[in-house]
């Protein structure tokens, strides 16, 4: 099977390395090897790293034509590589580029693609990979297969899988496939600018304090920030809060936002839709504060406080300060 690895910024991107976790489970059940395909320019120096995370084989497609990313160029080259290598399964990280690229590749290969998988299993009888994903506003889990077409293809939601444990002593075979036919770009990159977004990546934080529609205003988020600060955590929000313009999309938690796994998640003024809950399934402890005793979030929280966040949050901050002054 093959894992397509993005190598932008001179490193193998973490979202691609995460794929080696489900890949190892699948490869072991099907008794096949994991090949990681590194695409880009000057990527040969990155060839050892995939082995540290469990790759059995690395294929390099290293060409100046791949220095700038263009969907049809990367897509066309990946198609050629897949035709050469004939993998049973091709996994692509569900980053924005990955989700732009994968459907084109699947279509040209004449095969099926499952988007945004959050889980995998193997049907031992047929050898089909079960591709598991949450459609319909994350209220369902669908198990999808591609019984008659190969390669089976899936994009994988970022940050659902952890990196596999790293073993720097692992080695493997590196194969150069840079001779693969690379198409001419059908579009032209005029310019590219890094955006100084929020430095904070909410998906890396141990404590996340999140505000929803119940916060009521951007000013209200000041209190959310105050609580986050007391716990040394970061601020996030539900889709409704982001849609209201109270914080940026990069801080959105939920099915159309980010999937996070903090140790502590505090939801303030969030009703608890299935879409939101999907983003915090892996949180260790969930706390909810909501003025509505009937809010669904209470059924999905470990500790819930019924009350207006405007009186509850200052009380919590007060308690945290007292506890700290005692130690």
């Amino acid at each position: 099977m093959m894992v397509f690895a993005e190598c932008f910024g001179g490193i193998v991107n973490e979202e691609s390395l995460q794929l080696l976790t489900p890949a190892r489970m699948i490869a072991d059940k099907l008794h096949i090897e994991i090949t990681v395909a590194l695409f880009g320019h000057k990527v040969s120096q990155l060839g050892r790293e995939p082995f540290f995370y469990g790759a059995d084989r690395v294929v390099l497609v290293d060409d100046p034509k791949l220095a700038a990313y263009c969907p049809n160029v990367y897509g066309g080259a990946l198609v050629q590589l897949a035709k050469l290598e004939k993998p049973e399964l091709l996994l692509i990280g569900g980053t924005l580029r990955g989700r732009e690229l994968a459907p084109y590749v699947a279509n040209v290969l004449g095969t099926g693609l499952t988007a945004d998988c959050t889980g995998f299993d193997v049907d031992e009888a047929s050898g089909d990979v079960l591709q598991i994903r949450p459609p319909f506003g994350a209220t369902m889990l669908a198990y999808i297969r591609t019984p008659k077409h190969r390669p089976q293809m899936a994009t994988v939601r970022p940050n659902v899988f952890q990196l596999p444990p790293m073993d720097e002593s692992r080695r493997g075979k590196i194969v150069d496939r840079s001779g693969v036919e690379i198409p001419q770009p059908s579009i032209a990159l005029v310019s590219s600018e890094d955006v100084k977004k929020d430095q904070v990546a909410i998906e890396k934080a141990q404590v996340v304090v999140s505000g929803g529609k119940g916060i009521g205003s951007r000013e209200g988020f000041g209190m959310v920030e105050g609580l986050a600060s007391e716990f040394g955590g970061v601020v996030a929000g539900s889709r409704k809060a982001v849609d209201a313009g109270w914080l940026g999309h990069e801080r959105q938690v939920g099915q159309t936002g980010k999937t996070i796994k903090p140790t502590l998640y505090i939801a303030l003024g969030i009703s608890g839709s299935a879409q939101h809950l999907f983003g915090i399934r892996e949180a260790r402890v969930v706390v909810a504060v909501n003025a509505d005793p009937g809010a669904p979030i209470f059924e999905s929280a470990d500790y819930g406080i019924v009350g207006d966040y405007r009186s509850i949050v200052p009380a919590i901050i007060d308690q945290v300060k007292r506890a700290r002054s005692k130690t």
Partner: protein
Amino acid sequence: MRHLQGSLPRRSGHLEVSPQRQRSAVQVLICMASPNIVVGVKWVPNTTVVNVDPVTGTLIREGVPSIINPHDLNAVELALRLKEKHGGTVTAMAMSPPAAKSGLEFLIGMGVDRGVLVTDRVFAASDTFATSFVLAKALEKLFPVDVIVFGQETIDSSTSHIGAQVASWLDLPYIYYVTEAEILEGGRVRVKRSLERQTDVYELPTPCILVSMMKSNTPRRVRMSNKLRAKLEKPIEVWTNETLKLDSTRTGLKGSPTVVSKSIPTPSVPRKKQRFDGRQDPSAAAKWLLDNLVKEGVA
């Protein structure tokens, strides 16, 4: 591995210049003067209001209203802005059940000139591979086209597949996550697009496919004057497989390489569900919480 036969041009690994792309000088002038813009949209259940039955834990699907996919409204808005700037016409196309007609009427109300509803029982239960095939064949009937716009993803299946797949079937240049677009002299399209940590500017030749970024603009309201025009001119056509004459082994379940093996309600994560009413005494609630968080080892 099944090989696909089809009348659409097959790719050979390097791009052939397909007939659509060879533009005469006259065609370029026409594009600049009066671009033909098509937006693909979908009619979807409004998953943002779906509820889970508290007793059975299953979805309550009855009475869930359907709407035009909200992220497709950003695509429609992008198309309407192109029309405002450059003239031409905007056609909205939906491959959906017959009820989608009211959705297309809504889009005419926004200012779309024409609606095409592609609907037939043989198209039902198509995965994205089969859906994109039907859409590509339907779009061919509207050629020559300058810009085709799709929304980033739907709120029901949320795959993000269709734009790239249709681009593959029609062998057209494409780009995703477009926040702004304009048509330049010479008939090229310049777009701004956003990735996770960067903004890119690309230029594409026409015809091309743009996938708009969700939430990248504020879709305009429906106007009475547009609605009245719709009532008079009846600008919505319905195309069935009588019109498209597609091989039914390439649509619906038969034309779908992916199969849903099973679907279950999302299993809920076991939570403690402990609760404290803090309405009378917020301090007591806060203390209760801190004590528990300390016990959990997270505070």
